[in-house]
């Protein structure tokens, strides 16, 4: 495998006494779409700003193609950023905004004009050169911001929640468009978001963060199907998280009975988190169920129904395309392969 384009080693960052990042180790492969995902305050934006050069880590180093760039200022880095609130220059028109970086490089005027035209076509805003920034809609401003960064042909493009201010429909369109642009140009994207669906849709690699630490790094499929701990499971998609006891390898006790499972390597009688996705739980006739319960609520979610079923005092969230009326007595069926066992996260 080729050398990673960006590598963070033991990066920490603290403001006053507050540790924002704790010993982050991360590498980014060339041409991949990597997403930093986590709730607000998890340190994802700080990580991005350290890569961009707007923050200096308190300790640790940032390598770019193997070279230490920790103390290199942003204007000398071969990365460009798409800012959260676009940060377009209000005193310049669309073309001058996009040409800003090229003008600083003293590129030939004719060539700049050509490049601006090409990039505007790429982001679907042909002919917008002379428009003023104020006359653009949010989505259009977003495209100009992306064009302004991309026209400099950066090795790495940093995107800080770029779609945060757009409405749902536009978001979805832009997600696909961004992914297309990334594949077409073959540029490495580092993308920051708190929207798990966005992360799963676009990324090659997802980095889940919480409280300044990395929880899990993996492909979207891995992260969704094999969450490393209950935080990841809870943050990515919906989950039922129940405390259980590992009797021995391949056998776990929760909700008042023993279940076969596919996990091993725990100590005998160790307390564990049992995680089951709502769509992996089947509702069956009472006689066929592993657990018995009663439906207490049904919410229509579009594609599926979200039902809450209580059984022995435990509430289960269940997604199903078939509706079972409130009050019905049902059986709950869970396949061994759908039971995910995780070590208890120790409270810090």
């Amino acid at each position: 495998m080729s050398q990673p384009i960006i590598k963070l080693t033991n990066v920490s960052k603290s403001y006053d006494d507050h540790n924002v990042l704790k010993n982050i180790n991360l590498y980014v492969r060339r041409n991949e779409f990597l997403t930093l995902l986590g709730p607000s305050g998890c340190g994802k934006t700080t990580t991005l700003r350290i890569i961009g050069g707007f923050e200096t880590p308190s300790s640790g180093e940032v390598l770019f193609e193997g070279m230490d760039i920790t103390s290199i200022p942003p204007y000398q880095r071969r990365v460009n950023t798409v800012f959260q609130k676009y940060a377009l220059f209000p005193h310049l028109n669309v073309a001058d905004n996009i040409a800003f970086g090229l003008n600083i490089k003293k590129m030939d005027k004719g060539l700049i004009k050509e490049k601006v035209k090409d990039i505007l076509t790429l982001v679907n805003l042909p002919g917008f050169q002379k428009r003023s920034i104020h006359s653009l809609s949010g989505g259009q401003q977003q495209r100009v911001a992306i064009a302004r960064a991309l026209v400099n042909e950066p090795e790495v493009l940093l995107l800080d929640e770029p779609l945060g201010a757009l409405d749902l429909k536009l978001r979805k369109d832009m997600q696909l468009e961004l992914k297309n642009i990334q594949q077409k140009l073959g540029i490495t994207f580092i993308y920051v978001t708190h929207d798990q669906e966005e992360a799963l849709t676009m990324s090659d690699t997802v980095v889940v963060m919480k409280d300044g630490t990395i929880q899990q790094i993996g492909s979207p499929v891995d992260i969704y199907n094999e969450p490393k701990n209950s935080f990841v499971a809870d943050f990515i998609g919906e989950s039922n998280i129940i405390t259980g006891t590992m009797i021995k390898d391949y056998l776990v006790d929760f909700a008042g009975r023993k279940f076969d499972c596919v996990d091993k390597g725990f100590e005998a009688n160790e307390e564990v988190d049992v995680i089951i996705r709502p769509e992996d739980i089947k509702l069956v006739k009472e006689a066929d169920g592993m657990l018995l319960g009663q439906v207490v609520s049904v919410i229509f979610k579009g594609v599926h129904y979200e039902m809450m079923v209580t059984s022995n005092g435990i509430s289960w969230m269940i997604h199903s395309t078939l509706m079972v009326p409130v009050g019905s007595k049902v059986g709950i069926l869970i396949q061994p392969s759908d039971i995910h066992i995780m070590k208890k996260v120790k409270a810090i």
Partner: protein
Amino acid sequence: MKENRVVAPYLIWMTIFIVLPIILVIFFGVTIRTESGLQLSLDNFKRFFEPIYLMVLWRSIRLALISTVICLILGYPMAMILASNGLKMKNTLVLLFIIPMWMNFLLRTYAWMTLLERGGIINTILNFLKLPSLNILYTEQAVILGMVYNFLPFMVLPIYSVLIKIDKSLLEAAEDLGADSITVFRKVTFPLSISGVISGITMVFMPAVTTFVISRLLGGGQFTLIGNLIEQQFLFVGDWSFGSAISIVMMILILVSMGFMSKYEKENEGAGLW
């Protein structure tokens, strides 16, 4: 209508204290007193274009321009320092800057006289250090110093209030696109602060070009400015007609220059303080 009733007092006020005086000034400006009574005439304006008065006009504009430029050179960095993020004692500094403005402008100018005069504090210190005394008071430099001192806050505050509103992410974006700190200033910070600079220039130039107190106190009457000329005509010579004519010329000059400024500002799409 209800609105009219609310507006009425203001209209009456403005009529008595703004419109009427202007009409009077225009009336005096275009008439001269002869033996057969008042006569319509443009002689007062013709008289203003005599070399001796044009000299005064030129001196007023020159001193005001110099003061404005000095205020801009001193004030812009000051405004940048005040607006910078890392400054912990920012509020204290802004307050210190504003406190002198709470004091009467005449008092402050008198204070400068005691500082600058022959037996004043500056010369006492110089004598104490066995250095030759300086003749500062009653020079052109003293007049400029007085203008800069009195009008500097009017340059700093509008620039400061524009700078503080500039989105910091714009500066980061410029840096991200390859601009070093000088280029960031040249291409982003300064263009975005133009509206404040224009407000500042207007706020300093207007009072500087019409002042008569500073030039009388610190210039000792040797540097007659347009303001002194008008004052003389009304208070000492008693030629209200000529005084009014000079006032009208001054008003037209100010209106024209403000017109230019606001046109320039509009082209730059700035949002000024004033």
